[in-house]
């Protein structure tokens, strides 16, 4: 709140006559890049509406000659899409909720209390960024198995809850909340935890939203860890399911295209609705992706 405010956007004045060539140059480079970045996904989505027979017939056409959703219906029926979808949804939502609660509490403690062991713990959390779960894959698997979580969705969720990114996003935010607010609450007799729950959590809404979207994306798209933990096809998440189609001897591209496109829809929807929380995220605190 006390941060020095910069004057309102003072970008260089627009519309000078000498700027026209620059505008044309910059815009055309940018739009060329937009096309380059859009083509792979666009070609993929358009292909998914082609009938299976047309996928491999030359000459290829950008737009389907006959639009069809047969790939999608096939993916839905043959591929058990609904089950994988629900499993993934359970994992993503549970992990996201837990991540937010745990990160907010830890971030708040790190920001507002002054104990040597809290500082030590902050270093430990940062260390998890440098040492991602891929480097302790085998022993982490043994731990989860010993806890009896093998082949269960909770085995996928539990190790994913602590993230340095989330914790430090909250820490960074709570540092900017004036200590006066906390003191005032104390003087009014509010307990430490009730201050946290009733005053601090509501204040941190933007951070909660940002972390929720990030966490959901991480868990929705996660592949290696669920692959190791989940053995029973009934428990598979979407990424494992899609990977199993790709890994088959003869890839059924029609089903693969449909299933892949459908698996992207939830994230796309969340992003389009909550765009501002992602694009304006203050992402400079101890992150991993």
């Amino acid at each position, binding site marked *: 709140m006390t941060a020095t405010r910069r004057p309102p956007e003072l*970008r260089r004045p627009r519309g000078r006559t000498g700027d026209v060539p620059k505008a044309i140059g910059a815009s055309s480079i940018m739009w060329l890049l937009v096309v380059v970045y859009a083509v792979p996904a666009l070609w993929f989505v358009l292909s998914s509406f082609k009938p299976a027979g047309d996928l491999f017939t030359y000459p290829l056409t950008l737009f389907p000659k006959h639009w069809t959703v047969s790939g999608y219906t096939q993916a839905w029926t043959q591929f058990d899409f609904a089950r994988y979808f629900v499993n993934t949804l359970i994992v993503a939502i549970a992990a996201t909720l837990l991540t937010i609660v745990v990160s907010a509490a830890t971030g708040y403690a790190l920001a507002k209390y002054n104990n040597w062991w809290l500082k030590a713990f902050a270093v430990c959390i940062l260390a998890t960024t440098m040492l991602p779960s891929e480097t302790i894959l085998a022993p982490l698997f043994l731990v989860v198995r010993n806890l009896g979580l093998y082949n269960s969705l909770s085995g996928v969720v539990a190790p994913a809850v602590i993230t340095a990114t989330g914790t430090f996003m909250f820490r960074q935010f709570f540092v900017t909340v004036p200590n006066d607010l906390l003191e005032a609450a104390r003087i009014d007799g509010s307990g430490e935890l009730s201050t*946290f729950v009733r005053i601090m959590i509501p204040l941190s809404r933007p951070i909660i939203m940002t972390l929720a979207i990030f966490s959901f994306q991480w868990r929705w798209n996660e592949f*290696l860890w669920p692959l190791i933990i989940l053995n029973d096809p009934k428990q598979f998440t979407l990424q494992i399911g*899609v990977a199993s189609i790709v890994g088959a001897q003869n890839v059924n591209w029609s089903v693969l295209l449909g299933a892949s496109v459908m698996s992207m829809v939830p994230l796309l929807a969340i992003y389009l609705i909550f765009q501002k929380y992602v694009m304006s995220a203050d992402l400079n605190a101890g992150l991993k992706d």
Partner: protein
Amino acid sequence: MVDSVRQSAESPSVPDDAAPARAKPRWWPRKRYNRYTAAPLLLISVNLALFLLFFVWPVVIGLNYSFTSYTGVGTAPYVGLDNYQKLFGDSAFYAALWRTVIYTGAVVPLTFITSLGVAYLLVSPYAKGKTVARVVFFLPWLISPIIAGVIWRWLFGENVGLVNFVITELGGKAVPWQSNANLSLMVVVLAATWANTAFNMLLFVAALKNVPVSYYEAADLDGASAWQKFRRITLPAIAPTSFIVVLLSTLHTMKEYGLIKALNDGGPGSENNLIVQYIYLTGFRRGHIGYASAASFILLLILMIIAVVQLLANRRKES
């Protein structure tokens, strides 16, 4: 103020905690100290428990198992440094490690250039249509590594793929994108760059927006060219972000698995197996948990060295 009213209404139900501390002088001298110890301890307790359970414990037993020939079941016979010795003589391990280094060496600079370039355009006052462009550039972030792999596999299909179709239409010969190991890795590099641009672009956009406009105005008055301004003002100003981007991209790229799994499954053959895939295959497909743990620790050591070297380099540059 509302809170204080509510508090007094509730205080009978919580007589122990807040009320006495406020009413009288502290009747238990350590009360205040306790309150500031108990509350944060409680707040971090879940995180601490998970940290010990899913981080400290695996590191400890992983280190332990890396000295055994454990297979996941039964006993874990102690074999000393055998695993590490075998690892240093294992050509498949070296091949995977070397492939990972080449891959990282290609992806990180490419990602850096593309994401900085895209971010630069997105904050430039000259480019038009930035709102739409920003969404398009960001879309790959939403796509999982597996799906991204599928998308690029579809694009670069060897027999029927858009790229080969365009090449043959233009009179060229179909390129063996999948049966040639180097070309195959190149496709993965392109796919990874495409997928990683979005997130790093976000970091760069935030950094570029924070460069004081007055610097550019002063440079304009001195007649500096666009390149001079970029080289002398922009790059130094965003150096901390550049450092984060390089560090995070390196760590991320070193442990790539999903993308390459879906794109070519480390193929052709096992020529493009990267290090994490190697660990997965030895540990979980062949059941050599002890051996895979040793390989994991080598990867961990490499990542730590990378991080420390980059941190030191960054510090020296700053001073």
